C-alpha cells in the first residue's frame, strides 16, 4: 500500500472511456484485432445464429410450443465477443442472456431449448465447461470464482469467463465475487452486459455510479468499458483480459454497453415502461448490421455469402426445433434419480407413492 498523508481532501471518481473498433455505421475507428477473414465471418455467423435462435424461440413460445423465453436481440455482439476468445478448456459461466456463449463453447442449442422448455438441463456436456444457464442472477459470479480458484490450485493455464447483466451487479454475490477474485487473484474475467434494463428497472436505478466498470478499481481490479454492440471491440478487450488472467495477472471487470431490444422475457411487455424513441435510437446501433457493413466493405463477405449463411443458420435452428419436438416424454422417475447420487429411502418411498397415485408402473 503506497498511500501518503496530505492536508488536502480529495474526492475522486474514476473517469472512463468506451472502447470502440467499429462505429455504429461500420466504419473503422480503432485497431482491428488480428483475426483471419474466416474467423471474422465466423463471429458474424454466431451473431446471426443467435438472433435467428432468439426470434424462433419467441415465435415458438407465442405458438405454445415453448416455455417462457428471454430474447437476446440486440446483444449478440457482446455475447459473441466475450465467448469467442475462450479456448476449449476455459470455462463459461453465465446467465440466460448469454445464450450464444454456450453455443460457442460447444453446448448444443438443444440444451437451451430443453432448459426453457421445462426439461432437465442435462445437455450441457461436462467437457464444454459450462454450467446450465443461471436464473438466480449474480450467484453464478461466485461459482466462476470458485472454478477459477480450482484452476489456480491445479496450476492449469485455463481461465473462467463470468457474465451477468447490469441488474445482477446490485446483488451481493456480484460484489463478493469481485472482491474474492481480487483477493485470490483468480484467473477470471467478469463481463457485465449492461443492456440498460433489469425487466422494467433502468440502469440508473441500479447504481449511482457513472459506470459499472468503475466498481473494478474499488475491488483492486481493472475496470474497462467497451461498446457492447461492437463485436470486435468486445472481442479485443475480452481477449486481452483473458491473456492477462491466463498469465497470472488476475481478474478484470469489463462493462459492455448494449441494449435489450426485446422484452425481458416472453412474459414481459416493455411498452409499459419504455419509449419507442429509445428503441429507435438503439436500432441505429444494431450490432449485426454494423458488423455486416464492415465485412461487406472489406469484401470478406458477399451478399450471396450472407444469404447462404442465413439459410444455413435457419436450417440449423429448424433442425433443433425438430429434435426438440421429437424428444420423448420426460420420465417422472428421472427426477428422483438426480436429487442425490443415491436417493434416500424416504425419497424412494415417495417415488413409489407418486407412481402408484399416477397409476404408473415402477420401473
Amino acid at each position, binding site marked *: 500500500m503506497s498511500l501518503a498523508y496530505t492536508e488536502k481532501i480529495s474526492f475522486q471518481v474514476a473517469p472512463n472511456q468506451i472502447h470502440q473498433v467499429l462505429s455504429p455505421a461500420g466504419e473503422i475507428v480503432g485497431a482491428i484485432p488480428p483475426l483471419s477473414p474466416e474467423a471474422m465471418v465466423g463471429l458474424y455467423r454466431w451473431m446471426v445464429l443467435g438472433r435467428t435462435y432468439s426470434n424462433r424461440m419467441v415465435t415458438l413460445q407465442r405458438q405454445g410450443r415453448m416455455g417462457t423465453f428471454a430474447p437476446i436481440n440486440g446483444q449478440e455482439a457482446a455475447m459473441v465477443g466475450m465467448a469467442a476468445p475462450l479456448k476449449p478448456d476455459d470455462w463459461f459461466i453465465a446467465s440466460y442472456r448469454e445464450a450464444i456463449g454456450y453455443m460457442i463453447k460447444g453446448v448444443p442449442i438443444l440444451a437451451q431449448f430443453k432448459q426453457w422448455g421445462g426439461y432437465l438441463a442435462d445437455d450441457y456436456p461436462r467437457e464444454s465447461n459450462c454450467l*446450465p444457464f443461471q436464473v438466480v442472477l449474480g450467484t453464478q459470479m461466485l461459482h466462476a470464482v470458485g472454478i477459477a480458484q480450482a484452476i489456480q490450485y491445479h496450476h492449469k493455464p485455463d481461465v473462467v469467463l463470468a457474465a451477468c447483466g447490469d441488474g445482477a451487479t446490485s446483488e451481493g454475490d456480484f460484489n463478493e465475487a469481485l472482491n474474492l477474485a481480487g483477493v485470490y487473484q483468480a484467473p477470471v474475467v467478469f463481463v457485465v452486459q449492461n443492456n440498460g434494463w433489469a425487466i422494467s428497472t433502468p440502469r440508473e436505478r441500479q447504481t449511482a455510479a457513472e459506470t459499472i466498470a468503475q466498481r473494478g478499481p474499488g475491488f483492486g481490479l481493472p475496470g474497462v468499458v467497451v461498446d457492447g454492440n461492437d463485436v470486435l471491440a468486445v472481442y479485443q478487450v475480452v481477449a486481452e483480459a483473458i491473456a492477462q488472467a491466463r498469465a497470472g495477472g488476475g481478474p478484470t471487470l469489463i462493462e459492455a454497453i448494449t441494449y435489450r431490444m426485446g422484452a425481458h422475457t416472453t412474459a414481459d411487455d416493455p411498452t409499459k415502461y419504455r419509449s419507442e424513441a429509445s428503441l429507435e435510437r438503439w436500432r441505429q446501433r444494431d450490432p449485426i448490421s454494423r458488423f455486416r457493413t464492415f465485412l461487406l466493405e472489406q469484401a470478406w463477405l458477399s451478399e450471396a455469402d450472407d444469404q447462404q449463411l442465413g439459410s444455413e443458420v435457419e436450417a440449423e435452428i429448424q433442425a433443433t426445433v425438430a429434435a426438440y419436438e421429437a424428444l420423448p416424454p420426460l420420465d417422472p422417475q428421472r427426477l428422483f434419480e438426480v436429487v442425490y447420487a443415491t436417493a434416500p429411502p424416504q425419497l424412494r418411498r415417495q417415488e413409489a407413492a407418486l407412481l402408484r397415485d399416477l397409476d404408473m408402473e415402477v420401473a
Partner: protein
Amino acid sequence: MPMMTMVQALNDALALELAQDPEVVVFGQDVGQNGGVFRVTDQLQARFGPERVYDTPLAESGLVGTALGMAVYGMRPVVEIQFAGFSFIAFNQMASQVTRVRYRSGGVFSAPLVIRAPFGGGVRTPELHADNVEAFYLHMQGMKVVIPSNPYDAKGLLHAAIADPDPVLYLEHMKLYRSFRQEVPAERYTVPIGQAAVLQAGSDLTLITYGAMVQVAVKAAAEATRQTGASLEIIDLRTIAPLDEASIAASVSKTGRAVVVHEAARSGGVGAEIIAVINEHCLYSLLKPVERVTCPDMPFPVPKLEDMFIPTPERVTKAILRTLAP
C-alpha cells in the same frame, strides 16, 4: 485408543482428509494461522500449507458460492461458517445453488462439498451465535444435515461427509466441543450419514433427540427409570436430513410411546417431522400422544434466560413421566 474432545476429533478428521486427498481444501474466516475461533483447524495450515487451509474475507455467500465452483471442478472443499447463525447470509447459495447442481444439470454436474458451522446454546454467546438452524436445512431438498453428539461420531461423520457425493451441512454444537473426551480411533473411519444410533435399548418409551440434547435425554431417562422402573429407549438421530425413518418407526412400533427433545424452537421443527414419520409408520402403535420438549417459538433465548428455556433433564423427565402415565 486416544482420548479426544470433539474439537480434537474434528481436527483429526480434517488432518487425515487433507493428508489422503489433495482435492480437499479447508477455508473460512480465521481458520488459517488462528486455527479457527474454536481451534477446530488448529495447526492445519502449518501442516498442509496456505494453499490447502486458508483464511477468507468475511463473505458467507461468497464462501459457499466459490466452494460450489471448486466442487463442480472436482475438488472437495470444506467450508467453515464461523457460526451457524451467519449461515443465513449463504442461504441462497445453499437453497438455490449448491443443492441443485445435480438436479438442474440432470446429473451431469454435482457439488460434493461440506459446510461446517458451530451452533448451540448454553454457552452465553452474543446474539445469533447460538441459534439452532437445522430445521431450515431439513426442508432444503438436496442438503444432508449432520449433527454429532459425541467425539467418536463427530470424526466418523465428518469423514463420511467429506466422502459424500452430495453437499453436507455439518453442524457442531459448541457446548459439546470440549465438554467430554471419548476414545476415538486414530485412523480414518466413517459413521454412515442417514443412520441413527440406538444409545439405549428399552421397551416402554422412545426418547428421540440429537446433538447436545442427547446428554440431557440420557440424564432424564435415568431419572425417569429410577422413579418408575420403566425401560426407555434412546435414539440419537445423528443425521437430521435425511431422517432415519426406519429406526424411528421400529422403535416407536415397539414402545408405543415417544418423547422428542430438541433445543431448536418447536413449530415446523425437526420434532414435527419426527411426529409425522411416527404418524405415517406407526400411528396405531401409539398409546399416548407424542410430546415435544423444545425451546418456545421465538428467537433463540437471550443468554440471561437460556438455561431456563433450553430443555433441561428435569423438564424432559416430566415429559417422560406424563407420557408413561396410563
